[in-house]
């Protein structure tokens, strides 16, 4: 495998129909590290995250303009199929969403099975075990792989979704507030997992919890919005330590110190 390349985002404008939701994002996301995105509600963090695997355009009327370069290729190029982008850039959602009709095993292998790809039984067993171990879930579910995925607890379901994502073997994993519906113990399990996952994957995580951002991330980006109906902007990106101790921008400092938001 080639040396991991950063994600380069140049002059990205994100729209919902006529409404400009996020304006002029220019940022480089470092490979094999965790980048956290923080900011008040409605400022466009999740919207921005969803443009990184072209999930944004699933919403009717939504589109994005600009360049997002992953592994040297602009994913918004005319020739690029969004389906292929999503195979390389996985996503974990706020609410755990295992497929209700599938067993734990089938949920992990969903990326293979839903795409009608044929793989041998031994290869699929190995892939499943590797993904579940990668998501720190193997020991909890190895005796009930054929039970429904919906039968797991909330935290286990979220780790199942992470296993399902890494079973596709992406380069990048996007996480949209993955812990906001979980209790502190399950949150800790996922945060530990994020630390392990960054050895192999580039991770971008949106969170409302600033302690979480400071715990898990190497770099932090701060999004803000001037007011309702205004587009959101990426105010500042820096090393997490710098953002939380000595931010350059006044808005960031106000947000971090709890003066608003």
């Amino acid at each position, binding site marked *: 495998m080639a040396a991991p390349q950063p994600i380069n985002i140049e002059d990205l404008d994100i729209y919902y129909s006529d409404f400009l939701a996020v304006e002029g994002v220019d940022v480089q996301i470092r490979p094999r590290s965790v980048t956290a995105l923080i900011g008040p509600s409605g400022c466009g963090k999740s919207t921005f995250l969803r443009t990184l695997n072209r*999930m944004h355009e*699933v919403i009717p009327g939504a589109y994005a303009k600009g360049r997002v370069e992953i592994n040297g290729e602009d994913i918004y190029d005319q020739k690029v199929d969004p389906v292929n982008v999503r195979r390389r850039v996985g996503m974990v959602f706020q609410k755990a969403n295992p497929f209700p009709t599938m067993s734990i095993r089938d949920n992990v292998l969903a990326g293979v099975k839903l795409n009608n790809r044929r793989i041998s039984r031994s290869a699929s067993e190995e892939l499943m075990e590797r993904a579940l171990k990668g998501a720190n879930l193997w020991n909890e579910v190895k005796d009930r792989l054929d039970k429904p995925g919906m039968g797991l607890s909330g935290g286990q379901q979220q780790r199942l979704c992470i296993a399902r994502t890494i079973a596709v073997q992406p380069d990048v994993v996007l996480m949209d507030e993955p812990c906001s519906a979980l209790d502190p113990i399950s949150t800790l399990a996922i945060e530990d997992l994020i630390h392990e996952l960054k050895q192999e994957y580039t991770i971008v995580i949106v969170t409302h919890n600033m302690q979480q951002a400071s715990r898990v991330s190497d770099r932090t980006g701060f999004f803000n919005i001037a007011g309702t109906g205004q587009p959101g902007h990426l105010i500042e990106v820096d090393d997490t330590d710098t953002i939380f101790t000595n931010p350059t921008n006044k808005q960031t400092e106000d947000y971090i110190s709890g003066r608003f938001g």
Partner: protein
Amino acid sequence: MSTPTAVQNETSMRRSHDERRLPWYHLVFTGLAGLVVAIAGLAILDAFSIAAAIVVGFLLHLLFGWSYSLLREGPRWATERLMTLLVIGAFAVAMFPLTSLLWEVASRGMTRVLAAKPDPFAFWTSDMSGIIGGADAGGVFHAAVGTLLITLWASIISIPIGLFTAIFLVEYADQGWKKTLGTGVTFLVDVMTGIPSIVAGLFGLSLFITLMPDDSVRMGIMGAVALSLLMIPTVVRNSEEMLRLVPMDLREAAYALGVPKWLTIVKVVLRTAIAGLSTGITLAIARVIGETAPLLLTVGMVTSVNWNMFDGRMATLPTFINQQYRAGSANCMSDTVTNPISQEVYACSIATNIDRAWAAAFTLIVIVMVLNIIARLISHYFSPKLSR
């Protein structure tokens, strides 16, 4: 440690039990009292009938049960008693026509089916060819075959069209010209839902008369086309509701794994909704399987089995019921009737036509019930499993 816990348990148990609460069988007593008073009152007024006694008895039961409970249990429990009785009463009123209909059809139909000659169930294996006058013989095999074939073909036409329309409306009609088209389709489907079945029959008839050289053309497929006109809107409406129930989360989860949209629809959306879809389709089939008017117009009636959907008239159960009922009581000159051509001799029965109509109705209900059981099984085995 153990003593205070035991005491606590005892008090909490005692607290949850209200001493004033009466056992349930007091309701039976007030009910019987109501019935007795109703019967006595109606007898005095010389207006006694079983139906009136039950209705008046139930109303008196409401009054007695409520006032008795008010005295013994207090106003809160009295209200609860009254509401419970009202709910049970509403349930009974709803169940009465259903059970009475099923009982009537099953008992009358079953009698004829079991009494069939020469062997039991011959009613389901023989047709009406060569049966004349009041002959106590014959069966519905030809009509059952016709109904099943025509309904099958109507389903073959309607289910793909209906399901694909629903998929278009839910998955693709989200913006631009597709949204406009979707709104139009929805409106037209709503209008189609209200088409009287006779109009659908006329459509099927005139369509084929226009296409074929012969004005007197009658084919099973004409009936299937007419029925599909009635079936499509139901399939679209039911399937659309079911597909909209599939959470957006699941579609996004599949997209995020790099699954193309069409595979997501086939393997996630349809798969998740399959229980509801099978129920919806069964309801649509049940709606058309009993249609009479369009089939009278398009496929007519015959006395023997016709397996060919593309040639000639066919018998169907609803039209058979209609025909037999209209034939009315048979005119029996002697104990037997003889077919002048085959010289076969049958026992003559005045009620034979009416009996056949009941037995055919029973057969139709059995077919619908079997379809419902199949749909239930599909729902049971394919619905999302939530248990641990």
